[in-house]
């Protein structure tokens, strides 16, 4: 009798065979790192799973002793900026507790928070994927695509440096397909929600046999175990050791370049030997140096997919535009330009350096045409407004730098107001110029920098575009 009892206990300490795991719960947690109390499942179930060892539990914040004071690290977002750690009297653990303000938007992580990582069996991913895409590659695209596929197969990091409108997304298709067909899990990350929203339907269409999810702030909950994930870089905080291939699109965009924790996140979500691929039109010197030093694969495409050169920005002075607009008047050059666009029925984008300036200018522009709208980062109707412009329901859109990349609108014409402002760096200006002339039928278009004095950033952007055109066309 006693022997039997002992045997029974022994079984319990191992994983419990009698517990049937719900696939829903397993699929949700695989690859994720999640706050225990925020799980979208009943806490009793989580409790049971923990008891039977299906989860590894780690502390939310770890600290080590530094020279003068403790040094904290957030175990979810890997933030180590000490000024973002807040200490307070916690009523749950009844002591001085620390929380990380860096990733607080995803639910607060404190010293007494349990983070859960799936510890149970992981199912194999299917290999029967197809690519339903009948487009064709240019020579340069085909070459870059092959190089990327090879790099990924050999677990090599890779950089794709391609001008705006070179067809970067399509280049990814064969490489992603090859990885999926080997049963690998792939993550495509980008710093911008807009880019996720643009990429997701395109990938959904060309990979009809693949379960893919899109993750961004306030994304709806999606079912199943996704093999392909398209996410904002912020959402990567919620994953760990999850992917066999990680691709970062628009790797030079804000906030990725400024936020150390985001860059670390990219490395923590991939499995240790998994390859990383960066895709960008304007790689920073740091990225280029890293590529050289660590001998990454490198593909360079100086030509657009339709074979026409990049539109070169023109500089137009717009002296004291700030004061004019503040007085309630749009400078006449800008009125002329806008009226011309409306008369010729060409959709247009006008970029502003600040939300405040745009706020004052919007009603003034609406006097020219009442359907002109404006968008900025906190605008909830951003998606709808861009769609309206694309469908030619409205003549034009005023915007902050939020629309500088990732959007494609047929025959769009672009003006930048206050191009000398600090926020318009050379890479931002190159990206903005890259919105123009992306369609085969409308390969040319106007890009004007209205300025109050020319900056080196503006010159740099123009020179880089001229250089790329020279490389691409040998003129």
């Amino acid at each position: 009798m006693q022997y039997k009892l002992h045997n029974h206990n022994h079984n319990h300490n191992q994983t419990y065979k009698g517990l049937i795991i719900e696939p829903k719960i397993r699929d949700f947690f695989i690859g994720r790192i999640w706050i225990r109390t925020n799980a979208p499942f009943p806490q009793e179930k989580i409790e049971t799973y923990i008891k039977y060892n299906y989860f590894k539990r780690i502390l939310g914040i770890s600290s080590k002793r530094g020279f003068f004071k403790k040094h904290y690290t957030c175990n979810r977002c890997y933030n180590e900026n000490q000024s973002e750690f807040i200490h307070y009297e916690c009523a749950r653990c009844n002591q001085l507790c620390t929380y990380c303000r860096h990733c607080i938007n995803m639910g607060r992580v404190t010293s007494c928070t349990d983070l859960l990582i799936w510890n149970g069996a992981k199912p194999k991913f299917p290999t029967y994927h197809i690519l339903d895409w009948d487009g064709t590659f240019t020579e340069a695209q085909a070459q870059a695509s092959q190089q990327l596929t090879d790099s990924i197969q050999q677990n090599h990091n890779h950089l794709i440096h391609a001008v705006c409108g070179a067809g970067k997304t399509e280049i990814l298709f064969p490489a992603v397909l090859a990885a999926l067909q080997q049963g690998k899990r792939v993550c495509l990350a980008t710093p911008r929600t807009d880019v996720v929203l643009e990429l997701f339907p395109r990938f959904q269409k060309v990979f009809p046999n693949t379960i893919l999810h899109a993750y961004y702030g306030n994304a709806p909950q999606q079912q199943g175990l996704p093999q392909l994930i398209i996410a904002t870089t912020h959402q990567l905080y919620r994953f760990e050791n999850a992917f066999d291939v990680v691709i970062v699109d628009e790797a030079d965009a804000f906030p990725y370049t400024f936020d150390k924790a985001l860059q670390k996140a990219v490395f923590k979500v991939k499995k240790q030997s998994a390859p990383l691929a960066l895709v960008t039109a304007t790689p920073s010197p740091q990225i280029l140096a890293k590529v050289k030093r660590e001998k990454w694969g490198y593909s360079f495409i100086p030509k657009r997919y339709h074979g026409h050169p990049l539109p070169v920005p023109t500089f137009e002075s717009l002296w004291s535009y700030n004061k004019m607009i503040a007085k309630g008047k749009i400078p006449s050059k800008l009125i002329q330009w806008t009226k011309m666009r409306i008369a010729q029925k060409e959709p247009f984008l006008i970029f502003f350096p600040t939300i405040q300036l745009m706020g004052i200018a919007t009603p003034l522009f609406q006097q020219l045409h009442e359907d002109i709208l404006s968008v900025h980062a906190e605008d909830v109707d951003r998606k709808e407004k861009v769609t309206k412009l694309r469908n030619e329901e409205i003549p034009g859109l005023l915007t902050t730098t939020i629309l500088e990349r990732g959007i494609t609108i047929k025959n769009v014409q672009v003006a930048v107001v206050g191009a000398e402002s600090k926020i318009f760096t050379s890479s931002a200006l190159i990206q903005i110029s890259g919105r123009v002339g992306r369609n085969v039928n409308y390969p040319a278009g106007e890009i004007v920098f209205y300025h109050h004095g020319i900056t080196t950033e503006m010159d740099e952007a123009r020179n880089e575009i001229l250089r790329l055109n020279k490389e691409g066309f040998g003129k």
Partner: protein
Amino acid sequence: MKRNEVPNCLLCNAPLNEQMTWKYLLTNAFPRTICSECEQKFEPYHTTQNQEVTSLYKYNDAMRDFLHRYKFMHDTLLAKVFRDKIHEHLAKSKAIITPIPMHPIKLKERTFAHVDQLLKEANIPYQHFLEKTTTETQVGKSRQQRLATEQFFKLKASPENIKNKDFLLIDDIYTTGITINHAKNVLLEAGAKSVKAFTLIRG
């Protein structure tokens, strides 16, 4: 009070660039915690005289955001945002300051008492005389349902401490007044001389 304790705006993260002034050197005023742009988004609420409940701000979009981040996202640090205004209003109060209590289970969930925290950051001493008897909240109820809720406070301290004394109840938001009224009734029944209330927000 540490100077440069908060280098960036707690709400929008813009650098504060606090200028050194004589006022900072010579008085112990609270250093700024939010930028002037964020500050402008909050609408002050003007209490008319004879009103028993004083409030500082109206409930608008900025305030809804603030409350969400503070109370529901648990960003405890945000208790500092209104500390100077709260201090200004309560430092000279002669009444005994009593925050509206939380139910212990709720407290464990939130990990901090949001009303107490506001007072702590503003350096206002307070005492608890009440306790909450249900974990139910007023959130998500209609006005009718709220007004119909039964007494959910009971006395924690002995009545001698309450007899013939003046009290000032503190809460984060005043909407229908049911919370304040229930608390007030408990104190008055125990023999309090007067009970007034102060809330950060008027819904």
